[in-house]
């Protein structure tokens, strides 16, 4: 009986350790995937390309809820997530980072806004 008990305990510990390992792997991948840095890069480049392809007066609506949720989690001012300086867009999702900037060649005057659900609106105005 004692041997049988030992065998079960050993197997249970073995399975638990395996599950712990799996959980660590999943947490690592989820953390990496929702990291702010690649999200900033992705949105900065996407917005720059949207501006490049746009004609003046064009309005583009798209989903940025994951970035908004990230910024909320980081307690970052939502109005400063997307900013424009000359012909460069800067996307920032956290206080301690400098964000990611990318330039666009279309000589226009873009403006950007969010609604509460993280739906973004990009308006391309003439200069």
């Amino acid at each position: 009986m004692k041997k049988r008990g030992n065998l079960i305990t050993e197997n249970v510990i073995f399975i638990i350790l395996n599950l712990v390992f799996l959980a660590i792997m999943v947490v690592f991948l989820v953390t990496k995937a929702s990291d702010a840095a690649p999200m900033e890069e992705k949105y900065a480049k996407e917005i720059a390309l949207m501006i490049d392809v746009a004609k003046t007066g064009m309005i583009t609506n798209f989903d940025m809820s994951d970035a908004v949720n990230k910024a909320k989690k980081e307690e970052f001012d939502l109005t400063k997530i997307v900013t424009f300086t000359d012909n460069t867009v800067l996307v920032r999702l956290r206080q301690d980072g400098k964000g990611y900037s990318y330039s666009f060649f279309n000589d226009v005057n873009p403006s950007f806004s969010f609604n509460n659900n993280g739906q973004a609106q990009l308006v391309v105005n003439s200069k």
Partner: protein
Amino acid sequence: MKQDKRGSDKMISMYWFLILFLVAAAVVYMAAVFYGKPFDVREVEANLLVNKIADCFADENYFRTDLTQDNFMQKCHLNFNVEDEQTWKDDQLYVRVDIEPLGDIIEAGNKEVLDFCSAELTKNAYCIERKLYAIDIDNNPYYLSIKAGVRKTEKNVR
């Protein structure tokens, strides 16, 4: 005999954890490679630049004859200034338009970008050339060759 069996069980566990360690190392390496690489958007950017120039030259379906070297950037609404990144000095883009039969050449940006165009996309500027025919309002034909180069290597390749 019993001692041997217990010993072999422990050996299997040890190898199992060695395998887990190798799997973990592979996952971490792959994640680092995947998320460490920037998104390369130069191909899309170069295509958009060529499309914009083609649209500008063929305004309302007719070839525009009022575009010159001096007013090209302004009339086509182009701005080649770039963000402050390492040693960039607003020299990351280049366009050249050859217009036949006029023999005119209109160019803007950093000419050296085209010198580094190569089939090996990863380390050099991305370049594209597109040719098109157009007619002006009097039905005179024109042949345009538009070349565009986008460098921005530091932000698109690692």
